């Protein structure tokens, strides 16, 4: 089986930022992502996930290395200072590399 290397960008942040982030993704040309509700704890305290004000989301985007770095940089500049947010990039193997490329990079 032939697999191709892509990056998985995972973002964990406040659920209140969901709409703003979706707009950002749109602007950055990202059309595919997965969002799940999450709870947990960090430097800003505990997120119990029991109501909107205390819920996190985890967003996963599979993309090329360049796009992953671009999004991560954007998040770092716009959200890291004042919002609860972490993100990390990891390596993943995919079967259909074209699916994870933005129109620009194809």
């Amino acid at each position: 089986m032939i697999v191709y290397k892509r990056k998985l960008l995972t973002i964990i942040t406040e659920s209140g930022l969901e709409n703003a982030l979706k707009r950002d993704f749109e602007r950055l040309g990202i059309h595919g992502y997965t969002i799940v509700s999450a709870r947990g704890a960090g430097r800003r305290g505990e997120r119990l996930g029991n109501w909107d004000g205390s819920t996190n989301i985890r967003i996963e985007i599979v993309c090329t290395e360049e796009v992953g770095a671009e999004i991560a940089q954007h998040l770092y500049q716009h959200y890291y200072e004042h919002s609860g947010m972490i993100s990390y990039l990891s390596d993943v193997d995919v079967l259909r590399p074209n699916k994870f490329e933005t129109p620009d990079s194809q």
Partner: protein
Amino acid sequence: MKDPIILFFVMGVLAGVMRSQLRLPSQIYDLLSIMLLLTIGLKGGVELAKQNLIELIPQIVVITSLGIILPLIAYPVLLHLGKFKRVDSASIAAHYGSVSVGTFAVAVSFLNAKGISYEQYMPLFVVLLEMPAIFIGILLARGISKETDWKEVSHEIFLGKGVVVLMGGLLIGWISGDEGIEPLKPLFFDQFKGILALFLLEMGLVTSAHLRSLKRYGLFILSFGLLMPLLGALMGSLIGGLLNLTPGGVTLLATLSASASYIAVPAAMRISVPEANPTLSLTASLGITFPFNVILGIPLYFWLSHQVIAFLN
């Protein structure tokens, strides 16, 4: 404290404080809030259809102004006496200028239990009081800054969950009328108290999480969380009295003015003024003001409304 719904709230607080495993899924909380908002909206809409809207214009103007004045009073107090940062003062002020529908629902249930009537179109005031404070809060934090994306802010405010459901309920009630919503009665109106009880259980759990952070922020925020609602209630009941509302209506307006937002305003502030500390304002509005209003405030505002009406006459 004979009303069992208050005991549901207390149970939630105690379970939370003692770190019990009790937890309602957030989807249940969402559904309960939506049902409460729809019930309140539908009822208000049906009554609104019976009103002459032209006659309501003075009330609409006065009550919208109240939503602008309350945060403007709170802001300098927080900034100068509380010595909070500008963004935090503005954000807390916005919370207190806006309203809590949960508190309103408890006040409605309180009046129903006592058999006291009120202007049934009051839910319109909930919508009117919910929004202006958010704009004022952002203006106080930012000034008239080019950085603020007002389009995005307006989207957040006018299309927030609460406003859409409440406005939607009002419109559906208005269009459908008494007979139209009759088949919905078993789900919404008959279950109101039960839904409110479950909602308050969850609110108790949520509140308990914010009680823990109370120690960190000290005496000023505690005093503010208790005194600001009293000032709001006084202003609300005076305005209600001057608008010739019934004692029940005055009680509801006092409760609305006393209540602090914990859904619409925090959500808007996280987007528009992210550097404001959300824990600080939620500690005040959820940790102090909400339990105070639910347990002690509402009976007090009921008493106050009678005093104010007697005073004005």
